[in-house]
């Protein structure tokens, strides 16, 4: 199997799905000859032409609106929002139009499409290239929300998202785009179902539920706790909507403790939903309060490196938080 970075895996998934199904098309800003600002669509226009790989005007609401129009006519658009921060001008199209079309038509219409966007910080992207807006979309029934954290997951989940009958928001942690290379399967063997979490580290003392870039940070934090004899079990949700509650419950019933680690700011983050749901389901199994380890409630991540560092979770901060839960 070839070794791929996460962004290469995204590109491979698009390539394979466009080869497999000629209804699949790509649209967005700079997705054509440039191949996207992160190179996620590199070479696609050269292979599939300027119709199926369409450079759009710089206007996100119409990127989403046009994508929905294409989906209503039987095409399967994969729209790129250049940064997740810039999906907000398309918020009405996504939330009121795309997400609700099946429900409001009593099942007569549907919009199978994917909206991809790089998400998260830690790359000196500052306030408007670093946001983690997944909670906005997880609050919307009708959408599915995916955040992969490895090249193989990115490829398998994106292929599944493209084949899904419902609209999928596919958020790619940009910090991970080139962070590691991994062997990634090709074709059907690469497919991964949506809605299935991965237990990425086995442990007996404490469960961590996390996703995206925070998976890697939590693994490093867990290695430090292991030196102190505390074994952390880490669950990477991979799909946030719908999320794999049962895998989390099974782990908590074993460990009796739960921390939720997420990169977005703390209040109203998707981790708050995870914490609430699992506290309700696992109350009798819990030996400690459920803890959220998240970023501070400031509007966004500053440009200055000292301030960026102060905002971002890192293995030290996460390890401190996990020790508190373990020792409660």
């Amino acid at each position, binding site marked *: 199997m070839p070794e791929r970075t996460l962004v290469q895996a995204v590109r491979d998934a698009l390539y394979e799905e466009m080869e497999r199904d000629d209804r699949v098309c790509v649209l967005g800003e700079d997705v054509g000859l440039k191949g996207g600002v992160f190179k996620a669509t590199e070479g696609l226009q050269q292979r599939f032409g300027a119709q199926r790989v369409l450079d759009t005007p710089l206007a996100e*609401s119409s990127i989403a609106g*046009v994508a*929905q*129009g294409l989906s209503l006519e039987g095409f399967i658009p994969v729209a790129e929002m250049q940064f997740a921060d810039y999906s907000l001008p398309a918020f009405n*199209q996504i939330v009121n139009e795309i997400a609700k*079309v099946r429900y409001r038509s009593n099942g007569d219409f549907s919009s199978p499409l994917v909206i991809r966007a790089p998400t998260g910080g830690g790359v000196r992207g500052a306030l408007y290239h670093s946001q983690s807006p997944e909670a906005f979309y997880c609050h919307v029934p009708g959408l599915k929300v995916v955040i992969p954290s490895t090249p193989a997951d990115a490829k398998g989940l994106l292929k599944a998202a493209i084949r899904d009958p419902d609209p999928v928001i596919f958020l790619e942690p940009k910090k991970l785009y080139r962070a590691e290379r991994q062997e990634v399967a090709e074709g059907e063997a690469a497919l991964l179902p949506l809605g299935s979490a991965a237990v990425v580290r086995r442990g007996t003392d404490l469960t961590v539920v996390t996703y995206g870039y925070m998976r890697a940070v939590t693994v490093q934090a867990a290695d430090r706790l292991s030196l102190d004899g505390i074994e952390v079990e880490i669950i990477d949700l991979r799909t946030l909507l719908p999320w794999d509650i049962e895998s989390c419950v099974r782990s908590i019933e074993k460990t009796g403790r739960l921390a939720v680690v997420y990169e977005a700011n703390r209040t109203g983050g998707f981790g708050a939903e995870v914490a609430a749901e699992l506290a309700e389901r696992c109350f009798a199994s819990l030996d400690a309060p459920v803890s959220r380890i998240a970023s501070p409630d400031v509007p966004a991540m500053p440009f200055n490196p000292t301030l960026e560092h102060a905002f971002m979770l890192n293995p030290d901060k996460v390890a401190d938080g996990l020790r508190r839960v373990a020792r409660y």
Partner: protein
Amino acid sequence: MPEANGLTPGRVLEAYRTVLRARALDDRRFVLNRAGKLAFIISPRGHEVAQVAAIAALQPGRDRFCLYYRNFAAALACGFTPEELMLSAFARAADPSSGGRQTPGNFGSRRRGIVIGSSTVGPQIPKAAGIGLALKWKGEGALCYVSFGEGATSQGDFHEGLNFAAIHRCPVIFFCENNHWAISVPQALQVAGPGVAERAAAYGIPGVRVAGDDFFAVHAAVAEAAERARSGQGPSLIEAEVLRLQSHSTDDDQRAYRGAAELAAEAQRDPIPRLRDALIERGWLSMEADQTMRDEVNREVERATEVAEAARDPEPGSLGAHVYADA
């Protein structure tokens, strides 16, 4: 004799019947609203002739229609029956647009090519551009018709949709029903300059303004735009000037912000008598035939109301249906 664009006396009379049907149904809906039986209505009163004339120039069943909430008469012209629209007014389970989920005025029917609407203003405009792009790719000569009020032209989605459709020469007809009022905000506070049609120049597409009470003028403008769309020449913008002879909705009372004299003067300019007179002048309609048609329409409205009032509501257990494909 204006029989260009496939207009025959028979087709015009059928369109006139649709106009009468829309008015009679709407009048009945208002009575039912005041009687406490219908929660909320948006009236097409004053827009009916423009709407039906536009649809008469198109091909329901082949073309796509992104309608907005005042398009009650357009929905009838696209093939909705009086009974179906009454089921929608009563929000019954058998409402074909949404099974009673949306307020009446959000029309949708996949088999008729009517793309389900929503209640936010303007999002159908870029969606129509996308549908137009898909129709262009399919190359079957179909077009997408999208309508909206002049208030919607203040939305960014208006610009984004026209811009996209113009760049890609999508087969789309942008049809603005300018009734000069967005709830209580007059056109002067919505649009600088003479109106909406001039904006087409900014996108490099044709823009025309027509009198919305002139059936033949509206029909000709839409037929010309359709010809452009079907022959690969791209989108057009049409601004039909109409009157809003009713308040914005049953929850609004325009007497609070419009003068009594102005409202009385506009009521005298109701487009339906004008169309009737034009048909009589052409010798296509007599006063007697007009009355017969109105009687027939009124009986249809009676039947539609009886059926819809007696129809069942959606089951509470259906609340969670159709959120996703598998649920």
